[in-house]
């Protein structure tokens, strides 16, 4: 393949970057802007090459939302075929572009192919083909189809046809079932055509077994861009436009924080990145406002038509998701749409699977939904602010610009009136609180998402960007926090290196209070998976004891609760008890302190004391703030409940305290875990305690939460094992059998070494 040289535009004219029509861009620009899909293009190219050099014919279909980059890939493929000397003279290419409207029959399709061939042919062939096409219009349709097929065959002259098609879903809809059958027959009989096509969704005409063209295409679902993909894209675009400064900025913490905010806006859609990246690089905002309005205005009828196809409930949910920039759990979407969770869940499922208007991501056990096409959200956002169009841009500017940048912009001489008004309003309406800045919020969200999935490197990057975005707020506890974090996983060299770099930077810059919180969250995350460093952790107690007071009260409470819990989990009851008592004296997270003390008491068979502490734990937990409840952590709460359940069981009161606890925590994230642990504990100790109370307790749990059936089944299997009953009726999988056997083998097990099952 011969790729034309790319002219970096330093000093020269900026490259043409077309946001909506990549087919207008030259080959070199398209290559330069290819991000994250290099392997895919290579694979498509290999398929085309195989189709050209053998009698095999590949059909590929790229699926993705508007603006995801389908046309970019198809255009690039077109250029690569033409630029490869071994391929170009051995095939004919017909490219049916986006604007090929009005295909309503197989004959229409054949004529479009002929026109595309004429367009790409030599001038003499071009004229002859156009004349032949013209004659087809005077021929009866049935005969015209046969003649068109013969004409294509003649034009190809034994060479394969590479058919590039955009919006194949629309073309198939136009063809109808009869047209699709004719197309399939043509492809099968002539075996001369290889198709590479695009569509916005996977459509029935190729995915249903009853459709003529079922299974004929190799389907490739194009994924949204990650932040790193977006950064690469914008850096390359900036360099192509001769804006090396803009590209360099994206490598700074402030630049990355801005990108994180843009990522929330763009939802991984490359076209939206490109639209709004112009804000970051253009000198004048005024020049951008009208084109962006027009762009979104042009798209609005398309999305309005999609909305009309929906039921009222579905429309409501789409509106809710449009209003909310980001992902919403079902529960919250249901609340905002005033429907039940069941209705929301069912309708969101339909919107995802049948309409392809929303997409979901599982974070932990919860599914989060968002609008699949960010452009749709933006169109409706503009429409919503139609009485005050500037409102939309104020939101965008608040998202993308830093306060100091806007203040500097105000100083520019001869500022256009619209721009002056816009900047003034943005400044007036933007909070001075650094952590309220959309870029800081984006960093915190990124941190939280990374923390949930255990991507600690990304956690730390997010923290670093947060510090850069939110400014420099000194905090003396940072050093100790980081030192602690470093000790938690001595084997992870990459993490250690990252931590050290960030540590150095934070020490130099100072820090912010919220940073402490996120770092503790990070450390806690480690503590639940790795308890090997307890000695080091306890040594750090001295560091924490020396922390300045007051000012970091909440912070030290969280640390203490975490370290007490870690001691408890590793059997250091005495240390755990000391810490918990210290916490009570200092009024630091009393709910956690009582929980720890209840576990210690239960393990010493001081059942009355244990019960009393748990009651106090529950009472204080209910009184504590939401943030403190968060820091108590579901696992901690669950463990406490399990301990009490066990205690109650030993007191022959299976329906007493556990039930109370479960009701108290109903709806919390801890609930299912609590149920699981409680039941497993009861089942495991059934032999010594008698199966009847265990079964009664399990039934009670099931009444509270029927979804508990899976864990309950495991518990029943353990019970069956201990009582010698048959396990076969439960039809356990191999994995489940192994788990049950392990549980039985481990019995009896002290409560404090309980391992939490994954639910």
């Amino acid at each position: 393949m011969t790729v034309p040289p790319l002219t970096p535009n330093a000093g020269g004219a900026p490259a043409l970057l077309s946001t909506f029509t990549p087919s207008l861009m030259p080959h070199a620009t398209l290559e330069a802007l290819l991000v994250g899909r290099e392997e895919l293009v290579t694979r498509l190219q290999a398929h085309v090459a195989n189709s050209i050099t053998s009698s095999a014919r590949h059909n590929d279909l790229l699926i993705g939302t508007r603006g995801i980059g389908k046309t970019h890939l198809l255009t690039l493929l077109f250029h690569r075929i033409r630029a490869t000397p071994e391929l170009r003279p051995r095939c004919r290419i017909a490219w049916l572009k986006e604007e090929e409207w009005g295909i309503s029959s197989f004959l229409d399709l054949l004529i479009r192919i002929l026109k595309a061939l004429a367009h790409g042919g030599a001038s003499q062939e071009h004229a002859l083909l156009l004349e032949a096409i013209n004659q087809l219009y005077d021929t009866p349709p049935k005969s015209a189809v046969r003649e068109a097929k013969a004409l294509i065959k003649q034009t190809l002259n034994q060479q394969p046809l590479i058919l590039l098609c955009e919006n194949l879903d629309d073309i198939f809809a136009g063809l109808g079932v009869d047209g699709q059958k004719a197309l399939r027959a043509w492809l099968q009989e002539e075996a001369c055509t290889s198709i590479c096509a695009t569509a916005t969704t996977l459509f029935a005409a190729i995915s249903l077994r009853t459709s003529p063209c079922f299974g004929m295409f190799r389907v490739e679902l194009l994924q949204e861009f990650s932040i790193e993909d977006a950064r690469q894209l914008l850096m390359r675009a900036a360099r192509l436009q001769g804006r090396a400064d803009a590209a360099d900025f994206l490598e700074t913490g402030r630049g990355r924080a801005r990108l994180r905010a843009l990522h929330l806006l763009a939802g991984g859609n490359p076209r939206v990145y490109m639209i709004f990246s112009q804000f970051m690089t253009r000198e004048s905002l005024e020049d951008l406002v009208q084109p962006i309005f027009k762009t979104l205005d042009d798209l609005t009828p398309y999305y309005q038509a999609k909305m009309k196809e929906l039921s009222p409930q579905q429309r409501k949910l789409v509106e809710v998701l449009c209003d909310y920039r980001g992902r919403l759990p079902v529960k919250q979407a249901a609340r905002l749409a005033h429907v039940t969770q069941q209705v929301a869940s069912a309708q969101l499922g339909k919107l995802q699977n049948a309409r392809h208007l929303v997409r979901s991501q599982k974070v932990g056990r919860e599914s989060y939904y968002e609008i699949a096409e960010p452009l749709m959200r933006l169109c409706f956002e503009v429409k919503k602010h139609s009485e005050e169009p500037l409102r939309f841009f104020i939101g965008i500017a608040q998202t993308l610009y830093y306060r100091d940048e806007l203040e500097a912009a105000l100083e520019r001489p001869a500022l256009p009136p619209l721009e002056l008004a816009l900047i003034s309003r943005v400044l007036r309406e933007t909070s001075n609180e650094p952590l309220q800045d959309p870029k800081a919020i984006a960093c915190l969200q990124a941190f939280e998402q990374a923390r949930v999935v255990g991507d600690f490197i990304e956690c730390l990057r997010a923290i670093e960007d947060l510090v850069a975005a939110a400014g420099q707020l000194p905090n003396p506890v940072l050093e100790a926090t980081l030192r602690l974090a470093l000790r938690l996983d001595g084997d992870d060299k990459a993490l250690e290196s990252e931590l050290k770099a960030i540590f150095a930077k934070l020490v130099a810059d100072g820090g912010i209070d919220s940073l402490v919180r996120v770092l503790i969250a990070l450390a806690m995350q480690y503590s639940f998976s790795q308890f090997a460093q307890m000695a080091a952790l306890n040594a750090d107690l001295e560091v924490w004891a020396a922390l300045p007071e007051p000012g970091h009260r909440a912070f030290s409470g969280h640390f203490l609760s975490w370290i007490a819990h870690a001691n408890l989990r590793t059997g250091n009851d005495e240390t755990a008890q000391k810490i918990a008592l210290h916490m009570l004296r200092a009024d630091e997270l009393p709910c956690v302190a009582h929980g720890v003390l209840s576990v210690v008491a239960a393990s010493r068979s001081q059942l009355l004391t244990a019960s009393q502490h748990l009651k106090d734990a529950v009472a204080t937990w209910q009184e504590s703030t939401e943030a403190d409840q968060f820091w108590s952590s579901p696992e901690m709460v669950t463990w406490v409940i399990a301990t009490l359940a066990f205690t109650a069981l030993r007191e022959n009161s299976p329906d007493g305290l556990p039930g109370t606890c479960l009701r108290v925590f109903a709806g919390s994230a801890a609930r299912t875990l609590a149920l699981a642990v409680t039941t497993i504990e009861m089942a495991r100790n059934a032999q010594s305690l008698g199966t009847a109370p265990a079964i009664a307790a399990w039934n009670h749990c099931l009444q509270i939460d029927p979804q508990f059936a899976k864990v309950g089944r495991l518990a029943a299997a353990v019970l069956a094992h201990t009582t010698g009953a048959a396990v076969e009726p439960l039809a356990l999988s191999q994995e489940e059998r192994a788990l049950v056997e392990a549980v039985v083998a481990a019995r009896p097990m002290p409560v404090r070494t309980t391992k939490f099952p994954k639910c």
Partner: protein
Amino acid sequence: MKINPGGELAPQDVVGRDELIVQLWRALERQSLVLTAERRMGKTRIIKKMALATLPDTLLRYRDLEQVGSLTELANLLYEDVAPALGEWTKAQMQLGRLASALGGAKLDKFTLPNFAPASWKAVLRAIFQALAESGKYQRVVFFWDEFPWLIEKIRAVEGARAAGELLDLLRAVRHEHPAIRFVLTGSIGHHHVLTALRAGGYNNPSFNDLAVIEVPPLSEPKATELAQALLDGEAVPHDPQAAGEIAKIASNIPFFIHLLVDRLVTTKSHADTATIHQARLSAFTNSQDPWNLRHFVERIPQYYGAANQALALGLLDIFASHEKPLGLGDVLDELAQLGIGAPATLQRERVRELQEKLAADHYLEATPDGKRQFRHGVLKAWWRFSRELG
């Protein structure tokens, strides 16, 4: 070899079908054939490979009949297929010439197609077959007609059950009158479904009983493994030594699924081992887009067996999916009774037997040598268990 699920394969890439093709040629010496199998089992690949064979004194013609909308169109297509191959003018050709209303039809490369009058389709078809027989150029003519049931269904819908029945009768007569002319008919919907629809329209002739029905099976285990190995090598997928065998096994030796599994391993950049291969299949099962379109096997049940039989058919398949070993009719009846599905015991036995036979004809079940039944394909059984939450 490159992955190419659903695309056109080079003849040399049609792996593992040579023995079947030899068997089909041998069967064609005796009579015409019906090839049956679910979609994407490879029927079209097989007959296209056969149609590309070079045999002395033999004319081979492949057609996809799904495109045909009327009997006249069929006549035109057939004429288009045989006209260039016909030799000197014969009596039958002169008859054809008289049937052509005018030489004003489609202009093809070397000749202009005639316009046959719609009413003359039967005479045209007879004349074409007669002309072929009279030409003396070929000792054997084989028409490979793909998606034949769809043609009959279309004719029934557009021109009525009687016209569709007349076509079947005519083709049967041709097979008797001209032993040199053979047909290989394929279809992704069973011919029995088409006949059922025609019977409802009053057609009861035995139109297929002179044809040998041959099911296109999955590949043999060694050939399926060979295909998987060729794809792993062709796509440079790093793999364990037993990976190809594992892919073949969990794809039930079905080539289409083998292509899709390797494709998934390529796109996820996986090292192919037992875990990643099973993960690849599981991802197809769990994908809400249902990329293997397996839901179809549940969704078509009311259409195939009627709403009245839906619960029973689902119950039967649930039972077969839940058992590792084949089941006899008695076992099935016992399980149905436990599930509380179906009619009173006196009626149940025949109804279940009949439905089991239909499920076998539609490739859900197969008979074992001891007269019991089991799921036909392991991959479908695995999906059934997964999707119906059978544990």
